């Protein structure tokens, strides 16, 4: 059964790696729903958040193929229940419409949004949340002549993760110690995929 999976990839900061990771999906004709790259909790290490709608079996296979890339340190994949995630959205609407027709205060409160910019000609609102939440404000604003809308990629924190600081020390060792030598096949019970 297909469902949303958030794939977290820790990598070296290397030109060309985005393509290498993206081809792991495109070669199987998997659509990437959203993709975010950012620094991670560890200095110099990048973190990708990739959202796909796929079966667990396929996601596991892709995750292994990504993890074996030389510049990739670690891959985890998680269902929505296993993560805390947010998306950010910006909405640009004509100021006069908004000021006249809606109670701005109420609208902002209801959708947990705030005004980032208020100009004579337009106003920009911002909200973060799950898809339904950012969609809620979108629908609320549509009747008032929405000029522009944009939503960011998903960013996610894994509930069961203890962070990557410890791991990186193990990776930096010349020889993996027996504690460091995790074996994914032994960690099936754990919440996060681990290799």
């Amino acid at each position: 059964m297909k469902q949303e999976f958030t794939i977290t990839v820790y990598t070296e900061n290397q030109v060309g790696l985005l393509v290498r990771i993206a081809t792991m999906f495109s070669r199987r004709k998997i659509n990437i729903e959203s993709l975010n790259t950012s620094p991670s909790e560890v200095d110099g290490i990048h973190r990708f958040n990739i959202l796909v709608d796929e079966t667990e079996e396929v996601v596991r296979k892709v995750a292994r193929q990504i993890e074996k890339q030389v510049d990739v340190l670690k891959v985890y994949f998680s269902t929505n229940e296993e993560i805390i995630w947010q998306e950010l959205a910006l909405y640009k609407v004509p100021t006069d419409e908004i000021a006249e027709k809606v109670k701005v205060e109420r609208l902002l409160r209801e959708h947990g949004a705030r005004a980032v910019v208020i100009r004579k000609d337009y106003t920009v609102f911002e909200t973060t949340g799950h898809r339904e939440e950012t969609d809620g404000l979108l629908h609320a604003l549509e009747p008032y002549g929405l000029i522009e809308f944009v939503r960011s990629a998903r960013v996610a924190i894994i509930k069961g993760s203890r962070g990557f600081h410890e791991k990186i020390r193990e990776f930096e060792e010349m020889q993996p110690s027996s504690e460091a030598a995790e074996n994914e096949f032994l960690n099936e019970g754990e919440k996060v995929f681990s290799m």
Partner: protein
Amino acid sequence: MEQILEIPKAEKRLNGDAVANPKTTVVTGSQAVLDALVCEKVETIFGYPGGAIMPIYDALYDYSDRLTHILVRHEQGATHAAQGYARASGRVGVVFATSGPGATNLVTGLADAQIDSTPMVCITGQVFAHLLGTDAFQEIDVINITTPVTKWNYQVTDAREIPQVLAKAFFIARSGRSGPVLVDISKNAQLQTFDYEGYTPCQHIRSYRPKPIVRKEYIEQAAVLINRAERPFVLFGQGVILGNAEEEFRQFIEKTGIPAAWTILGAGAMPTDHPLNVGMLGMHGNYGPNVLTNQCDVLIAIGMRFDDRVTGRLDKYAKQAKVIHLDIDPAEIDKNVKADVPVWGDCKETLPMLTALVSPKKHEAWLAKFREHDAQEQAAVIENELRPTCDTLTMGEVVNLLNELTGGDAIIVTDVGQHQMVACRYAWFNQTRSTITSGGLGTMGFGLPAAIGAKFGKPDRTVIGIIGDGGIQMTIQELGVIQQYGVGVKIVILNNQFLGMVRQWQELFHERRYSFTDMVSPDFVKVADAYGIPGQRVSERAFLKNALQTMLDTPGGHLLEVMVGKENNVFPMVPQGCGVAEIRLK
């Protein structure tokens, strides 16, 4: 290990970038490239020059006492030659090519090496860094083009990166599950001088784990399954050869008495005449190994990846068996066939651990089943193929005579098609690293350059390329390499005047509609003659053995064209979409 080599005409090139430092030498990027190759003990490079790699070629001129460069006739030929070299010798194959078309011509060979895990380092020239992205003459985005077909690739635009990047390249190419690596070096970096501190080989990359520490739990679980098994069956692949674990493998097999069958890349890891070697797996493999895959109770896969040409339909594959999968690449475990016991590790380490825990056994009744199936296959297929009574020659009898004349000591290199399947089925191998064939990619045109490369890798062994009339014409220009360097490689063209393997499928599955598979070929003996290579053509049984003997006895290269039956088929066959047990004998 640090090493500073004597580097010719270094200081002369000193320019603004470099400062004199007593501990370092001032070298150009090109010299650093070649010094890296020398330090990595590279002896042979297959390559082709062009504008963007000229500084490296210029420097190579001064290294001719330490590095042998073989000028191929097409860059694809360089990649396959490097593959043949690597697979015969166990060393890393090295390729040079220029930017643009030189680089794009590498793609097929890289893809072939990637899927067949062949260690290879390709170095391409690139336009000046300031021209990148401007559609400069012969600029191509080789990094993006080759990303899906390399284990790793990297673009260098600053010479100071060269020693470290090449050290990484060689380490990655040969460690873990080996594979091809491409390093693209812009022309300015080749020309740039810098303070060179010598070459330090790479031994660790923090984001890269070539192999894990083996977990004993899994070895123990595997041993329990094996000790309890009544009909255990081993499938082995190239992992045994790449892991240099032939001896460990033999000990495991002989202690457990388990029948073992091979993939075409694993052939030779165990001698053909070993009593526990029960033959070839896959679509055109032997009858017993295919049928009995679906009767064994424990299936032990060692260094193989359950390619679809081996498994046929997966939902009809070994469903009754418990599966133990030993592999160095965790992405292979559970990819196609779910493993009950995954043994992730280098089989050089895992096999002895397993051997220590298994009890010595014999499986006579079970082995007898393989022999029964073999008898059926002998009668239905093999006898007619090896000792035919028809007028026309068969591919099998050619291979059979070669076995007789070489005693199974030759390296057999094949191209792709019917002749490949026949060669793999019937050739004898006494020792490892004796069969070189394009398995995963099935690249026509592989055979001739790979045979040439194999001869450079193992000059003391007899190297025979068995090639189809179609495939030879894909890289026939490499005969020029045989001519120029006097390569003592023996080429056997099995000419059925057809793109035989495709024709066979048309006959069996497309109502004999031979759509564009009959092929008119040149006079191959005359072509060879034009290249100064002696050759002969035979079409009659009476002359075949002598012709083969002449080929083997002729010093240097030789080409023998054998006219074989036009419409012979390769059997047995597991038709596409069928399970292994549905293998057809005719």
